[in-house]
């Protein structure tokens, strides 16, 4: 399988001196669906923000064989679709259509293709009827789906999701899990929802204190209760 993300010895410190990443290395292949779990402050969100160059640390980040640098940032940002935890941060335009069109428009696509991509993205999250709605009138579950559509419209090769199921009621959560299962795309999902991990993501990467504590098959990692407890996690 082709490697799509390669991270080698990635280190990052915030301006206040807090060391968030202390040498993280992993690879992700095309079609992988991996979970990124770990306690709060483990460095999961920091790692995700490195993958499309919002934050820049020391070490190597390669996306689809492109080394992350200032010059190819626009290309890499089109390859990595980052969905933020709070959909109110992700949906910053007045209407759903404008938000989903934001990515394609900034990629410089012609208007005809932008419209076509918006419709396809909304269709794939089953929200076509919401095209002309105002973002602030939507429920949290609806906002989450639209937030996913806003990056799908850029046709990324990797979907990186931060806490997709947080704050959702059981029905919305179930709908989201079904949706993510059906999306034929490489996925890295940061979450505390271990049942979602068990059900959806065959591979698990455990992070703690800025390091990768384990990287392997979800079933095996979730089976080791002692290990999970040691890293502030819980068996589903």
């Amino acid at each position, binding site marked *: 399988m082709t490697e799509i993300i390669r991270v080698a010895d990635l280190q990052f410190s915030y301006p206040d001196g807090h060391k968030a990443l202390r040498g993280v290395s992993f690879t992700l292949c095309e079609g992988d669906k991996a979970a990124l779990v770990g306690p709060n402050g483990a460095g999961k969100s920091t790692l995700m923000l490195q993958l499309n160059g919002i934050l820049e640390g020391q070490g190597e980040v390669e996306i689809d064989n492109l080394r992350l640098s200032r010059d190819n940032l626009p290309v890499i940002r089109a390859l990595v679709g980052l969905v933020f935890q709070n959909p109110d941060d992700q949906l910053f335009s*007045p209407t759903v259509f404008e938000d989903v069109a934001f990515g394609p428009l900034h990629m410089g696509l012609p208007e005809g293709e932008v419209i076509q991509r918006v419709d396809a993205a909304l269709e794939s999250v089953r929200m076509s009827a919401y095209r002309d709605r105002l973002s602030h*009138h939507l429920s949290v579950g609806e906002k989450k789906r639209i937030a996913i559509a806003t*990056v799908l419209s*850029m046709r990324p090769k990797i979907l990186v999701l931060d806490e997709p199921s947080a704050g959702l009621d059981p029905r919305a959560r179930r709908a989201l899990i079904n949706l993510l299962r059906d999306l034929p795309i490489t996925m890295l999902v940061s979450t505390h929802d271990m049942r979602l991990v068990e059900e959806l993501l065959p591979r698990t990467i455990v992070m703690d204190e800025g390091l990768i504590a384990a990287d392997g098959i979800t079933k095996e990692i979730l089976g080791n209760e002692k290990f999970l407890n040691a890293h502030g996690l819980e068996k589903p």
Partner: protein
Amino acid sequence: MHSDAFDRFHHGHSALHSLDPRIKVVVTIAFIVSNALLPDGAWMAFALAWLMILIANIASGLGVGFSFRRSFIALPFALAAITVLFSIPGKAVTSFHFLMWDMVITDAGLLRFVSIVVRSWLSVQMAILLVAVTEFPKIIHALNHLRVPTILTVIISFLYRYLFVLADEVMRLLRAREARSAVVAGSNSGGSVLWRARVTGNMAGQLFLRSYERSDRVYNAMLSRGYKGELMTMHSHEYRASDWQIGSIVFIGILIAQIVGRLP
């Protein structure tokens, strides 16, 4: 928990709702400018402008008195013009003593004051009608088309989007305060005024910090989707013949009002 307090749009399928937003914005601005240009005491012209508002109200399907009912909110602003009552020279109408001054209201001052109040009241009604029949994003599109600088339209659209989020945040803060504002039986509630002021100040600070952090996250979300410093938007509106017709009729109305207002 949602705050829709600022949303003034009323759903509908009237002629005004389906009118092109650019025409609506231009016509509203022209109407307001026309009111401002009418001479003092041009009562016939003011009445004509009011008639136009009534017709627009009917055309909007929201009821004849719709804009009238909502227009009082703007009246306090007309008080800013209260000084003209005393400052324009003319024949004294009445006088009174206020603190250490003798105030004299003149006939010319009164005429100017009433005219200003009527002008602003008419203008506010048309603006109320505009936002009632046009979805806010469409007003922003219209402004874009009318070559209003992008930086302004972008600020307005962010303001519109996050006003609701902020209002929700305020509501949550207020609720959290409310929930902990308990009283022990037999004692007075709350603390001194100073203490209360400090709580309120802290809440305002909280709100600022939260907004500041949010702006960071929003900017990150924009960067992730390819934002490079220049905002690109897409608006496809096409004028129809009826847009031009309605626009022209309003302009003729405005012109007539201007002529009537200037007749000796």
